[in-house]
């Protein structure tokens, strides 16, 4: 789940105020193309590759990545989406509600799953996603692609494909937007 949803919905209920553009939309496009090539290289093609975007920030990136993979390889790569709300470890500590219905209409057994998210932060969302994916079959391997890795991990999770490593303060926020690119800023609680 994108950092954005978590920070901007109650009980935080903040407003994101951007301070600086870290990547332009063109930079984002180039990164998606590059990660696409890396995925093909790492997996020697895309034969068994399935992309799964994490709701909600990872989903549009996964779709764009699928188009790139299609162009590179000439084969269509399936794209699903995953909402990890029911797998989170903070259920009962805060309101946790799914943003959208999970859509993984295939058995993942034997496939190579590339999880896609916009921002990698504590790693807890990815931890939850790994548990969730296990309920859709035993994937041959699971890889992680993120647009921005901003550090501050709380669990031992490491991405396989990174758009940009971005050192941040813990209380900052990173927002990935289709039109504005990647913005670094703060959450202001009114």
């Amino acid at each position: 789940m994108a950092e954005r949803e978590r920070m901007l919905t109650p009980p935080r209920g903040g407003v994101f105020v951007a301070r600086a553009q870290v990547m332009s939309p063109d930079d984002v496009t180039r990164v998606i193309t590059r990660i696409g090539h890396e995925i093909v290289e790492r997996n020697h093609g895309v034969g068994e590759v399935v992309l799964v975007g994490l709701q909600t920030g990872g989903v549009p990136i996964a779709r764009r990545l699928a188009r790139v993979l299609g162009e590179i390889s000439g084969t269509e790569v399936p794209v699903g989406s995953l909402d990890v709300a029911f797998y989170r470890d903070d259920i009962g500590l805060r309101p946790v509600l799914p943003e959208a219905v999970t859509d993984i209409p295939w058995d993942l057994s034997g496939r190579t799953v590339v999880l896609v998210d916009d921002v990698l932060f504590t790693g807890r969302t990815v931890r939850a996603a790994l548990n969730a994916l296990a309920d859709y079959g035993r994937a041959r391997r699971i890889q992680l692609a993120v647009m921005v890795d901003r550090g501050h991990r709380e669990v031992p999770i490491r991405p396989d494909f990174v758009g940009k490593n971005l050192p941040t303060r813990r209380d900052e926020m990173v927002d990935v937007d289709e039109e504005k690119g990647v913005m670094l800023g703060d959450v202001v609680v009114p």
Partner: protein
Amino acid sequence: MSATHLISVSDLGKEGIDDVMRLADSFVEVSEREIPRVPALRGRTVATVFFEDSTRTRLSFEAAAKRLSADTMTFAAGSSSLNKGESIRDTVETIEALGADAMIIRHKSAGVPLQVTRWVGSRVVNAGDGWHEHPTQALLDLYTVRQALLRRGDGESFAGLRVGIVGDVKHSRVARSGVLGFTAMGASVTLVAPPTLLPPSVEGWGVEVSHRLDDVLAGLDVVYLLRLQAERMTEALLPSLREYTANWGLTRARAAALSPAALVMHPGPMNRGVEIAAEIADLPCSVITRQVANGVAVRMAVLFMLLGQGRNDSGRPESGQEAPVDA
């Protein structure tokens, strides 16, 4: 959503009902998986406390709790210490002491679930109290109608939808919750029943009343048949079952007057041949088995809403001003 208990559909309002519907969408997806289980309520305990008989509601709640990985406890009045004279209060306090985070309560008297909320700290869900309400039934009915509307491409709005609730309204908690639910969502509701099976007053219900099914049947989008509750009838309210069927039952002949897109619903258990002709329940317009299947997803949504939103006893979410813990 910050509900603490679910006693009446009116606890939710339209916004709360919409939340349940959206959440149920996710749980329908979960229920369709090969492994229909998520760890969301691991470590929580849900007790079904039924002082009155039930098949589908109890099983449905237990299935919902298990699919959320909650532990379940079952209390059945027939084999309990109630028979030794233990009071309801002592009973529910005992169940709370055994660790129930939520109690699903059914009782033949209206108001028992509400009273229990004053005795215990557990979340309480009303699974039917006397003639009063059965809110999760109304929610799964609304969900089933919404699902049919969406599949048909009509959007999820209930505005303009004409719902007929037919039969034994007087004794029906399903009817009361249904009226509250459908009217909250913007549908218009007509109660169709003989005068003896209507409550003394429906003032303030926001519904129309008809005594003749044939007058309204063709104009209905949803025909909701209620079970004739012979066990609650203590006086002669009907001349005979056959006469009831002839006037208010959905017979095969009468079903021909239904509009082609109309949905036929029934909360179960059905008296086939009384309020509904035996074969109608199996026609394509009937969504009765879908109601049962949706019941599990909707009850998962209700349990998740009550137990998954913060452990503090006020039922309000914590303020969450701590450092962000996620991305």
